């Protein structure tokens, strides 16, 4: 892998944008972060269940409840 200082500008820009997005997510309020976690659970749950892991997506307000074990 190329060192950071020799990366092509568009790749460097993509990495910088990714970093900026992480910082933006880290700055969200706790309640907003909880909603993001539930969204991630909704995305990950089918994959994990297909692998045999029993998971439950949190059925909290403002999120779509998926109540399967």
């Amino acid at each position, binding site marked *: 892998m190329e060192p950071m200082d020799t990366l092509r500008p568009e790749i460097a820009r993509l990495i910088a944008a990714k970093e900026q997005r*992480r*910082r933006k*997510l*880290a700055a*969200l309020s*706790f*309640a907003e*972060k*909880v909603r*993001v*976690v539930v969204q*991630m*659970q909704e995305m*990950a749950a089918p994959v994990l269940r297909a692998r045999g892991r029993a*998971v*439950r*997506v*949190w*059925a*909290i307000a403002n999120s779509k*409840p998926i*109540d399967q*074990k």
Partner: protein
Amino acid sequence: MQVLNNLAREGVLSRYAIGGAMGATFYVEPVLTFDLDIFVILPKTVSGLLTLEPLYEALRNRGYTEEGECVNIEGVPVQFLPAHNDLLVEALAEAREVFYEQTPTRVLRAEHLVAIALQTGRDKDRERVRLLREEAMLDKDYLAAVLARHGLEARWNQWTP
């Protein structure tokens, strides 16, 4: 959070704070987890034994059911972890008072989350330490004191070359 606050008010638990992945999420970008880890200080029992049974019983009386290691409270699997050592007792005593929407609650300090991860020592704890170092605003002096008090400096040095 309201359920936990009510349990604290009624003396079923002495103090609680959010830890684990959701505790870390308070300080960093959201982290995928399916459990809510709640660290608790339990009231002293007559026998002196540390048991979650009175807490579970109070939750059962409210209609919340146990699912493996967790209790399903309002659609969220909550895992209660009693403060079983000095680090956890200190972490709970110094937890931050915060709000989840309009409800007051408590989250362990980021420095204590780092120390607990170091003490627990699994691969995912190592990743948590990395994330907290990168994204949380750690108070370096406070962290150094916690690590020294609980004998965690060697692992910190090992994990953060």
